[in-house]
């Protein structure tokens, strides 16, 4: 993101203050909202027992990621 207004206090070349870099919440919100929802859906898909919520029918996804679930610490049996 280009900063149109640069801080006039740091012309000496001491570097910009970290607070000059803040990305406004308005700009961040849609990325975060979608990112959080997407992360949760993938987590459910990988970690679920595919029994409580079964899309699609069967145990194929459950069996396919079986070892990853055990070793990444998600509950399994």
């Amino acid at each position, binding site marked *: 993101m280009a900063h149109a207004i640069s801080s006039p206090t740091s012309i000496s070349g001491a570097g910009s203050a970290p607070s000059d870099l803040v990305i406004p919440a308005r700009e961040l919100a849609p990325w975060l909202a979608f990112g959080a929802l997407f992360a949760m859906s993938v987590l459910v898909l990988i970690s679920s027992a595919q029994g409580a919520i079964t899309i699609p029918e069967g145990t194929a996804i*459950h069996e396919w990621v079986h070892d990853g679930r055990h070793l990444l610490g998600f509950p399994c049996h």
Partner: protein
Amino acid sequence: MSTRTFLVQGLVAGLLAGIAAFVVAYTVGEPQVDRAIALEEAAGATAADHEHSDDPAAGHSHDDEDAVVTRATQSTLGLATGTLAIGVVLGGLTGLLAAVGLGRLGGLRPAASTALVALLGAVSFSVVPFLKYPATPPAVGSGETIDNRTALYFGFLAVSVLAVLAAVAVARAAVRLWSGVPGVVAGAATYAVIVVVAALAFPKVDELGDFPAGLLWDFRVASLLTLLALWAVIGAALTVLVDRTWRQHDAVRARRELAASL
């Protein structure tokens, strides 16, 4: 430095982390999974009415003959699917959260604030939930309680993640009120208190039975190493990438200011 840059760099770091987690899980973890399944099958052969017998309604079977996915696939492609998917998702999310943290975490520079975000992610998302509900090998845990255990695990995970967000808010307010060190202590105390209370309030899960303690330890160490490898690579790779972007950004800014001052 834009949100887009952070997301792209987070996804790249996450992909690398997924590969690292697969390597650790395959080399350190798979031998323990195989040993646990061998025990499970030996127990299943002696006890005909065991919950992991051939009745598919009671849970899944680890036998090759009737399995939907063979063990060879589970331990290679299946494992890689899991670690890569989780790696990319956590890497991307860590990247976005590092964008939020940019310039908002006291006087920390981009590299330091990014590293802190990754550290908080590792502690709140993996290490603390592991301490309350540690990973269990195959043969431990019944198919009848899996829904309940999943709900407890993700409930505690949600408390831990929300607690770390609250702790950061408290730390920022306390830093403004007092100064750096008391602020950080207030934030850490907030997280610790919430998580300890939650850990005491959440029920205990103990379905170990007579599972061998040595194998359980080896499995849990392997599982923790997998998670730590995942987060270490997310943190290290993302920090390096963000720092490089910031240096380029700062060099451009310095040149502009020099030109403006002439």
